[in-house]
């Protein structure tokens, strides 16, 4: 991929690698407790320590606006960049120390004294003692689809009634958050970020600047997975410090901060009910989500994604979902790879598996009887599935899984599990548009697009796309993104939208460029543009020809809009459970996804594998551990928050695709970034449930992560 030769030689430029003369370092003073009145901040000693340039508290930021929420509520309580009179989660920033060196900044941060009067904290969703005086602890409540009729439940042959927990996950890009701010006009912000134009808007808004007075540049970025799209409070504090001091300031987050103070994903208590008839036809699904959204409504509305997805892959006449988002005294819950869809797939696919067990039906057969087959399909909770052949995808998965091979006598308890999912890619109204442009320069072509890579090979895939569209070699196409000074508008990279939206925008821009070039050549030659042909970068009419470079500078833009797309997939897993220890080993993992038309198989394969690994993380090892009041109990950092290593990856991993083109996308493309996170967790838990049922175990006791002790306890008769 483009750029790999730099990255493999240590010549990457991540935010923390940038060298700017006179740059100061920021370190934050953070609340050590989940909830307290903040009675005072004593910086007297800290200010006298060597190297300290400034210490800012809330009093110094009164002219800075509130932190913008990304998926907040209509009536979000104000969120200040530095806490004023209360701290509402462990790790909430209270002050920022600016010093000439990170060690000295941290020394001074440790010397700042906080006068705190503790209040009770609450980690679990539910009503507590009013985190905000003027707001209920229920930040948002929303209902999707008409309620299921009472008679449906009464007349059903079987009703499954299950409760699941989506544990909080720490996104944990290996590069944590990082920002470097250079004051001046424009104010220049280098930041590891997924949504540079959003960050520009957020900073400009909070500082009372015009958007043009802020330039956001995303250098190499070390992963993001949904967590790097907000304008975080720390960013506003660092910007204010750079502005006040007239010096560049950077903040490089450390891992402890990332695990305690940064946003997390998932965080839902789920109650699912499914009604079915004697043949296993699903009659109704009711999904109730109680989400713990943390202390600030950064992602309060995101659980709505779970509700919208409550039909999953099934044609079910009655589907109803309710979401209640609760403030809790812990760091904000926000987007993490999948953002609402893994939660829905887990709830529905676990319950569907319980239904199959209850009816004594093969789980694949039960699913097949209920799959959506006619498109477009409108779900009762408000989605319009665009296209697909869900049954073909499931069949391919079973072919690769070979479920029967694992039945019969085996040395250890063995289980087979499957899960189907449908997800939404491209985003929601408001971001279902993207900017692309193509410019002819004497030396070649430059594509510009409003997405922002945090590790995805956009430069390779998009340059190739533009080159193919223009019929020129890829090496004459340069691709620029992640710089608001270069790209006028954009919606960034999340919701698996980049290729679907950004790719389509670039394709449109390339087409527009060809049209414009033909027009201009025609004008030169006194012809009509219909007489001029575009031939691999050369304009031709009869014997005349004109290389497009001679028309430089020539520029064309395209703003692409479309409804979302609906990728889907079927996952299958075979597990073996250690009967003495409860440890789970994956003997095989099958992933069959439909991403529509695939532009670059290597790139999507990489996304699939990476999201599978993160799905395995959720189901097997990862979980933010909190006490009841919301304080993190992970003293050893990444030794407590366990990311999957190479040793956890199954060796028998079978990845395949079906490819039903997306009807609403000119390239036929659907999003591909999040599939594995969605499909893997329910498939693995279903497989473990299958393994322990014959032993008299109780699958309802299985909860993620499936640590050996969880599995061991669930398998005891």
């Amino acid at each position, binding site marked *: *991929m483009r*750029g*790999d*030769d730099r*990255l*493999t*030689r*240590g*010549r*990457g*430029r*991540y935010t*923390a*690698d940038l*060298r700017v003369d006179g740059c100061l370092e920021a370190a934050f003073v953070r609340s050590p407790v989940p909830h307290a009145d903040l009675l005072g901040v004593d910086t007297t000693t800290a200010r006298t320590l060597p190297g300290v340039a400034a210490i800012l508290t809330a009093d110094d930021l009164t002219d800075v606006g509130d932190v913008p929420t990304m998926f907040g509520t209509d009536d979000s309580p104000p969120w200040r960049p530095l806490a004023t009179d209360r701290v509402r989660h462990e790790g909430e920033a209270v002050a920022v120390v600016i010093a000439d060196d*990170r*060690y000295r900044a941290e020394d001074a941060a440790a010397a700042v004294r906080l006068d705190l009067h503790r209040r009770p904290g609450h980690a679990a969703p539910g009503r507590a003692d009013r985190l905000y005086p003027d707001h209920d602890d229920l930040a948002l409540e929303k209902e999707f689809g008409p309620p299921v009729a009472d008679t449906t439940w009464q007349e059903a042959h079987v009703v499954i009634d299950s409760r699941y927990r989506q544990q909080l996950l720490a996104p*944990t*890009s*290996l*590069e*944590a958050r990082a920002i470097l701010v250079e004051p001046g006009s424009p104010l220049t912000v280098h930041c590891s970020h997924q949504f540079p134009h959003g960050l520009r808007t957020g900073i400009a808004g909070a500082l009372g600047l015009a958007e043009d007075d802020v330039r956001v540049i995303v250098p*190499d*970025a*070390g*992963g993001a*997975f949904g967590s790097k799209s907000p304008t975080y409070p720390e960013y506003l504090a660092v910007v204010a410090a750079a502005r006040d001091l007239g010096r560049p300031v950077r903040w*490089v987050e*450390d*891992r*402890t901060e990332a695990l305690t103070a940064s946003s997390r994903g998932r965080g839902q208590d789920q109650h699912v009910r499914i009604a079915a008839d004697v043949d296993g036809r699903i009659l109704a699904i009711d999904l109730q989500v109680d989400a713990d959204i943390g202390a600030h409504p950064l992602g309060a509305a995101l659980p709505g994604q779970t509700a919208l997805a409550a039909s999953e892959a099934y044609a079910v006449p009655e589907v109803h979902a309710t979401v209640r988002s609760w403030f809790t005294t812990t760091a904000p819950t926000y987007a993490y790879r999948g953002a609402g869809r893994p939660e829905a797939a887990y709830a529905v696919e676990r319950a569907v598996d319980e239904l199959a067990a209850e009816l004594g039906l093969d789980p694949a057969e039960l699913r097949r009887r209920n799959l959506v087959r006619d498109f477009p399909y409108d779900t009762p909770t408000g989605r319009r599935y665009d296209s697909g052949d869900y049954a073909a995808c499931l069949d391919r998965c079973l072919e690769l899984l070979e479920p029967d091979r694992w039945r019969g006598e085996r040395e250890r308890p063995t289980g087979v599990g499957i899960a189907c999912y449908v997800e939404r890619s491209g985003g929601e109204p408001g971001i279902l548009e993207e900017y692309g442009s193509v410019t002819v320069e004497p030396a070649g072509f430059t594509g510009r697009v409003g997405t922002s890579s*945090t*590790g*995805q*090979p956009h430069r390779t895939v998009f340059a190739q796309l533009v080159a193919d569209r223009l019929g020129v070699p890829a090496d004459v196409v340069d691709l620029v993104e992640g710089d608001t000074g270069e790209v006028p508008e954009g919606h960034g990279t999340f919701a698996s939208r980049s290729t679907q939206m950004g790719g389509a925008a670039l394709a449109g821009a390339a087409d527009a460029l060809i049209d414009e070039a033909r027009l201009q050549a025609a004008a030169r030659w006194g012809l009509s543009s219909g007489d001029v042909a575009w031939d691999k970068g050369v304009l031709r009419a009869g014997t005349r020809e004109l290389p497009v470079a001679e028309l430089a500078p020539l520029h064309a833009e395209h703003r692409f809009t479309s409804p979302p797309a609906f990728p889907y997939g079927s996952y299958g897993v075979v597990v073996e459970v250690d009967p003495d220890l409860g440890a789970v080993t994956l003997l095989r993992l099958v992933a069959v996804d439909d991403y529509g038309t695939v532009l670059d198989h*290597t790139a999507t*394969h*990489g996304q699939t*594998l*990476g999201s*599978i*690994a*993160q799905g395995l993380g959720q189901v097997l090892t990862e979980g933010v551990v909190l006490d009841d009041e919301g304080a993190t109990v992970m003293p*050893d*950092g*990444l*030794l407590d928050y366990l*990311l999957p*290593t*190479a*040793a956890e*990856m199954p*060796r028998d*991993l079978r990845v395949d695709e079906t490819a039903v083109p997306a009807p609403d996308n000119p390239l036929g493309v659907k999003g591909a970034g999040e599939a*594995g996170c969605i499909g893997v967790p329910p498939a693995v838990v279903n497989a473990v449930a299958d393994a322990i049922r014959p032993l008299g175990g109780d699958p309802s006791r299985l909860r993620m992560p499936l640590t050996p002790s969880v599995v061991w306890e669930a398998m005891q008769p």
Partner: protein
Amino acid sequence: MELDVNGTRHEVTVEPRRALADVLREDLGLTGTHLGCEHGVCGTCTVLLDGEPVRSCLVLAVQATGHEVRTVEGLADDDPLPGVFAEHHALQCGFCTPGFLMLLRGALDEDPTVVDDDDRLDALLASNLCRCTGYEGIRNAARAAGTRPD
């Protein structure tokens, strides 16, 4: 103190508490060595100390004096590892890459057969974390590097 990095001697003045990683990155400008956790778990900061992979976030710079430090910038031009990493798509964001490269360089120098056995290879690679790739490309690149002449 003196520090021997990638065959060059450097005179640096450092506080005793300063981590080797910070001296490499901030004082010598060798930013190819990354910091992913700063507490010894992720391995992104792996460098070679007298040929042995170590976590430079856990080594004090003063401990490295009198030893040879090698970072990703010091990999030989004809070292096959960077090329096979690119070829096998062993990286996405690339943040973990220098750590894996140095881990493998150290391990292959000690025993080139370590990558030939799946269990030994996974045990080795499990020393470091990658959040993006799912490790398949890293495994494949490691195997390929082992079978190629240095």
